[in-house]
Structures are given as structure tokens and as C-alpha cells.
């Protein structure tokens, strides 16, 4: 089993490396000349050449890649091409904000969805299940920007309970931060929970058709215990996978939600980077997002391995 875990980590590292090549090559072939953008329309060919030399842009692509990768690995993310600040400092605060948002959403939504999914599976075809199924299906079908806009309309415009703009700063107290980010939090919890609830329910009901579940019924075990003790353990694998994918979405895929609430997170920073052709910034953000995906998927694979007694206890 150790070998399987190490293998997963190794595959993760290889994936990250392949991603780094793709990100670097991808951003390099984008149209647009960084020197031209930074120096402006008035720059002379000499000043452009000087800028390129100073930033290593005149070197062959593989050399640029090696320098960049070396920097990434050692934590030096480079200097922003727009503004000249270090990328680490640009990302630093934003990364914290994103992690705060993702963390709070995860802490609330994962247990909530698993419990609601379990409840739906315990009482299939009852009104609880129907309400949950109808609710989750509707919410999956509705795009996140619609939910976000709708929330703004209700809570900020009509009721005036919450601010429409999630303006947070490090000086805020905890309560202020939570109040300011309440709407993006709620929106995201709704978006990610719907899918996790459905997968939990489907995963458990799938296992409920197994002969060993029929056996536990014939042993006189209560249905609730059957689901929690017998079915859930066998459904963990697929559930963990969906949870991991949804958490990765929280880090990278929340651009729209961040934009609507003007939440200063990492995804929005990346979009800004794309608009200003700030390639080092885009590359760094892309690597962080991919890293998050890879780490979460490794974690979910390891969790699936650990939850499977065949893999945990070989013959």
C-alpha cells in the first residue's frame, strides 16, 4: 500500500512538471510582446532590446524555462512585468484571501453535503429526499453568476443586510471579515454542496443494492445503521473524489464569484494578469491552481486507498 501512495505522489509530481511545461509554452506563444506592453508605444527598438536583455527575454525559450522553473521551485516567483513588484508579494495577500474563502466553504459544505446526502439516501422517495433532489438538481442547473446576482439582489439591494461588495482588509476583525465575505461564502457553499449531496446520495444508493446490504437487513439491522456503518464505508471512494474536485474548483474556478463580489482573491488576480499581459503573474497563478488540483486529487486517491480494506490489508 505504501508503494501505491508513493506511486500516486510521484505521478502527481510528474503531472505538475508536465503542467509547468504546458503553462510556460502556452503563455510564451500567446501573441503580444511583453517588452512592447511594458515600455509602451513610444519605446524605441533600443530601449525594447535593453528591456529584453535585462529580463532574459532574448535567451532561447528552454533557457527561459529553466530559469523560470528554478525560480518556481525555490519560491522566487519572479517580478511582475506590470508595475515591477515581486509576484510573491502580489500573490501573498490574495492567496490568503482565497484560502480563507475556500477553507471556510470547505469546512461548512463538506460535512453538510455528506450529512444531507446520507439523509436523502436514508429516506429515498420520501418528501425529504424529493426536496433535496429537487433543490440540488435546480442548483446544479443554475449558473453560479445567477445565484450570486440573485443573492446581491435579495440581501444587499432589497433587504440591505449584507454588503454587495466583499471588501476585506487585514485590519478587519474576524466578524467584519465574515460579514464582508458572507455573500461569496454562501454562494459558493450552495454551488459546491449541490453536487456533493447528489454524489453522496447516488454513491450510497448504488451500494444499497449489494447482497451484503440485503444480508444486513436479514440480520435485523436498522436502516440508519446499515447506511452509516455498512454502505457509507463502501461509498467513500467516489464521494471523496467529488469532494476533491469541488474543493479544487473553490481555489481556481471561482473567478466569476470573485468578480461579482469584487472579492480580492487569486482567480481575480490571474484575470487581471491576463488583461495586462503580465505573463510571469499568469504563470505563477496557473501553477498554484494546478498544484492545488494535483494535491487534492492525490489526497482523495490516498483517502480512497485507505478506505479500501483490500488495498489497506493485502492477503
Amino acid at each position, binding site marked *: 500500500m505504501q508503494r501505491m501512495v508513493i506511486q500516486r505522489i510521484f505521478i502527481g509530481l510528474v503531472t505538475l512538471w508536465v503542467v509547468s511545461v504546458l503553462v510556460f509554452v502556452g503563455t510564451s506563444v500567446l501573441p503580444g510582446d511583453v517588452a512592447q506592453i511594458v515600455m509602451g508605444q513610444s519605446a524605441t527598438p533600443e530601449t525594447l532590446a535593453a528591456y529584453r536583455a535585462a529580463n532574459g527575454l532574448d535567451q532561447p525559450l528552454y533557457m527561459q524555462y529553466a530559469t523560470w522553473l528554478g525560480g518556481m521551485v525555490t519560491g522566487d516567483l519572479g517580478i511582475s512585468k506590470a508595475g515591477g513588484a515581486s509576484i510573491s508579494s502580489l500573490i501573498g495577500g490574495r492567496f490568503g484571501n482565497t484560502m480563507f474563502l475556500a477553507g471556510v466553504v470547505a469546512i461548512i459544505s463538506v460535512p453538510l453535503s455528506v450529512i444531507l446526502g446520507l439523509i436523502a439516501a436514508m429516506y429515498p422517495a420520501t418528501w425529504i429526499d424529493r426536496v433535496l433532489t429537487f433543490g440540488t438538481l435546480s442548483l446544479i442547473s443554475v449558473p453560479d453568476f445567477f445565484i450570486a446576482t440573485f443573492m446581491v439582489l435579495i440581501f444587499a439591494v432589497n433587504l440591505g443586510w449584507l454588503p454587495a461588495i466583499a471588501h476585506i482588509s487585514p485590519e478587519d476583525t474576524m466578524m467584519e471579515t465574515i460579514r464582508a465575505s458572507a455573500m461569496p461564502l454562501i454562494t459558493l457553499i450552495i454551488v459546491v454542496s449541490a453536487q456533493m449531496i447528489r454524489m453522496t446520495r447516488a454513491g450510497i444508493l448504488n451500494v444499497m443494492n*449489494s*447482497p*451484503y446490504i*440485503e*444480508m*444486513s*437487513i*436479514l*440480520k*435485523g*439491522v*436498522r436502516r440508519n*445503521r446499515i447506511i452509516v*456503518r*455498512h454502505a457509507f*464505508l*463502501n461509498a467513500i471512494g467516489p464521494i471523496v473524489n467529488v469532494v476533491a474536485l469541488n474543493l479544487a474548483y473553490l481555489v481556481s474556478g471561482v473567478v466569476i464569484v470573485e468578480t461579482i463580489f469584487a472579492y480580492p482573491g487569486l482567480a481575480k488576480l490571474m484575470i487581471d494578469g491576463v488583461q495586462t499581459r503580465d505573463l510571469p503573474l499568469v504563470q505563477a497563478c496557473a501553477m498554484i491552481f494546478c498544484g492545488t488540483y494535483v494535491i487534492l486529487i492525490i489526497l482523495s486517491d490516498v483517502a480512497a486507498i485507505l*478506505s*479500501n*480494506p*483490500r488495498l489497506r*490489508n493485502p*492477503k
Partner: protein
Amino acid sequence: MSELLEVRGLRIEAPKKDGPAIQIVKGVDFDVKAGEVVALIGESGSGKTTISLGSLAYTKPGLEFSGGSIKLKGDDVLTMEPSEVRNLRGNRVAYLAQSAAATFNPALTINEQVTESAVLHGIMTQDEADARAVELYHALELPDPDRIGFRYPHQVSGGQLQRLMAAMALVGRPDLLVLDEPTTALDVTTQIEVLKAFKKVIREEGSAAIYVTHDLAVVAQVADHIVVLYSGEVQEQGSVDQIINHAKHPYTKRLMAAAHAGPKPGMGDKLTDKHDQDTDNIQVKNMTAGYGEIVDGKPAITVLRDINMSVKNGHVVGVIGESGCGKSTLARVIAGLLPPAQGDIIMDGHTLKGLYKNRSKKDLQKIQFVYQMADTALNPKQLISEIIGRPVEMFQNLSGQKNREKVAEILRLVELPVEFAERYPSELSGGQKQRINLARSLAAMPEIMLCDEVTSALDSIVASNVVKLLKRLRDLTGVSFMFITHDLSTVAAFADEIVVLYAGRIVEQGPVDEVLSPPFHPYTRLLISSVPEMRIGWLEETMKKREMAVGIARGVEITDVGCPFYNRCPIAISGTCERVTAPTYELKPGHFISCHHDAKTILDIERNPQQVLHGFEKAIPDEKIAIIAE
């Protein structure tokens, strides 16, 4: 009230949205006395499982009770409240299913599952239940009884799991046990082991039991009273002696006729001259195969070693052996699903490529594989006409109207109505699906069909009809069969030649009548004597033979050197058999045995069983024999 369980006028039906409900059980009466084993027998669809589950107040989804009563010590289980029903199940009535492998939850330890119901019902504390479980593991003669409960289901063998399920049922000392075909899926040798353990434990615990099966020979060993069912109605019931020895009802007599008479020489039909061409259709030469990467002609895990055999045109070769002996692997190698590490597969004078992808379309057409489970082998989303039409189109280039005509012709060949072409597999019965499974292979117009346990999942009457069909197909088309099975009686009645595989080696092969008459290879002998006979007291007699006890108590192990049967062989020669590969010699034309003993010695031993025990005691320490033979 002297009866433990009283079933009166029991009716169970399947309600339909449109139209009247389908009657599954039509007014059944029978009793179970305390300490008595009642067998419910009948073919599939007779309602025997449905009735037995009724005593747990349970029906499969889609069925419901529609009348009658089932009284356990005077309480009608059909009118109980849900909480009473929970208390009934696992506590007063316990259930043992056919497949222990599917019945144990893979994610929980064995002990938790064994003790769960007793603890949940508040009969015992966890500690008491654990102690009781260990006591039962001892009684069921499980290996390492003090610690086996800490393992997970995948860490023990199938036969052990089957006995652990008995422990699960018995832990709460139920009044009644319901055993649903508990040995049907097992090898003959494992079946004896499990039957013996069940019988002993039922006797010691003094609990009553309902034993559901279609196998009359098994019933003769375990039951006190027999209820014969057909289509949800009782045909005949009486004591085991009355039914087995003096059956009255014509249906019971028919069941007895379809039941296996033990494998004996001379049971099969002789080949028709028309197809007896005595030319090799397929030949396997010095073949070694296994799984994993092949380095220097040796796979990581070697399964088959030095296989030499052939199938003649129009012949049926039965391949027998316990599970784990490599029977299916042999078929997979011939079909090209698993390339051999060494040796050749020769067909019609040329060597076939190892992997199916590299074989020509013509070669692919000649060899067709038929899988055991028609349920999983047939695509549920395809019409029968598509399932059979595909190979017709691929190998015979027929499409449109011609394809449909061919499909109809093939359906007639497997004795199914032509209208079935427009149905889906789920609309057919088990036996009909198996016919479609055969028809699909037949549609390629093969020269040889590799049938992997095609009758094992079917009950005796359906299985004997499928075998009749196979015989007819051979006579009509001249196709050869390689018939893989663990059912010796079917092979005895159907095959022309037998190949006995043990742990990846051929230990004996030859014409069916030669293999089934002495001298036997010790393994062939073990297999033949393990087939239950329809005779009361057979199990006890057999288990008294000490060489049977040891052969049955141990399992198949693949060894690199020596004879793999060494540790189960009653006549093994210490110092030789475990070190040197057994020589193969020809007794009669085409009849080969691989053994360190020569034919004369084996025959002598056959006549003088004392010698068997002599050699046997050398091989196995005495205290071990005492445990096994108890």
C-alpha cells in the same frame, strides 16, 4: 405446540401495474419441528428461496405477501410490527446466503459482521459475542480460529467464508436457520468440507433449519424432511427416506432422473461416426503461461506448466479441476486472450499467434469463447438480433435481410423461437439467456467452442437441457468443444476425452471411460469420491476415509518444483514427490498419467486401501489427522 415453524396457505405475489398480480407462491403448507432440517427442493422459479425468506418476514423487492401465515412458536411473522420483525431477523431466525463472497461487507472485519446482530439485538455484550464467535470458529474447524475474525473477507478462502457465514448466523443461537443453496457455488471438495461443518454445527447447536437447494444428493446428506416444490406449489413432502428412496409424485421422479448419478465410465454417448475424424483440430504443445511480465519465457506468476493436449475434430474435451487450477487460463490462452510464455497453439497445421490481435480474422472465427455468466456476457441494451447479428455480419459478411435470416436460423438451432430476435436479454430466463450466449458464439461458425462453466450457474434440469443442446449442435455442425467445469457428472455424460488439471499441470488425460476407471491418478480419485451420491449416510461414510479428510482439508497450491498435489496426496513418497516433477507415462493409447507411482502400484493401492493409510500417515503429522478426521 410441537411445531417450531408452521407455514399455512402461504401466498406471495408480484403485483403488476397493468393487470393482475403474478402468483409466485400459491398456498404452501409445511412444518419445521425443533431440531429438524427441512429441505425445500425444486428448480429455479419453483419459489423455494421466496418461501424460505418468508420465514424472515422478508420478500425480494417487487414481491409481497398476499395470504396465509408463517407462525414461529405461535407468533405469525407476517403480522409483526417493524420492531418485532427486526428482533426476529438475525435473532430468532438467521439466514445463510448462496454466495458468502457477496454477502460479507468488504469494508468491515469478519468479526464485526459475525457479532453484529447478537450485539444489536441486545442478546450479548460485545465481549460475550466475541467469545461465542471464537467458539463457533473452533466448532466449524476454521484455521487459526482465535484470530481469523480480525481479518477482512478478502483475506480468507471461499470455503472458509462460507463457514464464517454459518458462524454469523449461529452466533445469536437462533431457533431457526435458513440456508439458501449454501454449497451450490463451491467445488466438490470444498462442498464436502462445508457440508460436514454445517451438519456438525446444526447437530451440536440443536437448532432447526430450512435448507434450500436443487441438489438432491446434497439433500440426502443433510435433511430429515423434504418438501418438493414446483411453480410455487408443494408437489410432495415426506421424510428423507420416503422421498429419496420411494418417490411417488411424477415431478419428484423427474427431478431424481435429472439429478446426477455419480461420474462412472460408460455414461456418455459414443461419437457418431460422421464426425469422428480423429484429426486434431487444435493442439497445445509444451505450453507454459501465466500472468505478469514474461522474462526469458517465464511469467511473473506461472499458472500453467508444460501443457500438452489436443482437441480432435467433433470431439468434446472436458477440462476438470478445482478452482485455482488454471482451467479458465487454459481457455484464455487458446482463445488468444493471454499469450503463452512458451510453447505453441497449433490449429489446422499452423501455429497461431499468441495474442488475439495478431491473429487473422479466419483464425479468430474458428475459435469462439462462451462465458459462464450469460447475465454479464450479454449486453443488456442490445436486442438479441443485434447480439447474434454482429458476429454474423463480421465473420460471414451478411447484412440486412440475409443477416436476419441467418439470425433466425441460429435461433432455431439453439431451439428458441424466432420472435426472440426482437427481445432484450432481460426478458429471457436464465436457461434461455445461456442459449443466446451459445448462439452468439455459434453465429461465427466456429470450429471449436471454449465453454467456461456454462452449466455451473444453472439448476440440474436446465443444465441437462443445455448439455443436450450442445450434443445436438455437435452432431449437426461437427463443432468441437472444450468444456470446462468442476462438475464431473456432466463431463462423464458428455465428454469424449477428459483433461484433469491440478495446480496448472495436467495430471491425467485420456478417453473419458479410461480416466473414470482405475487406475486413477490420486487427484482424479479425490475428485470422483468427492461427488455427493444420492444415498443417505454417504457423507459420513466418505469422511471416515482418512485420505479423503486430508485431501479435502487442504487447498490448491501452485508449486515450482515437484508434484503440486504432494501435500494432499495419500500415497505421496516423501523425499521424491515434493522435489521431482512427476514423470508422465502412457497407460493405454491416449491415456496419460503423471505420477511417481507406476500404474501397477496405483492399482494395488486401489485394491488394498491399507497401503493408502500407510503412505498417508507418513506425509501428515498424526495430531493434524485427528483434527481433520474428527
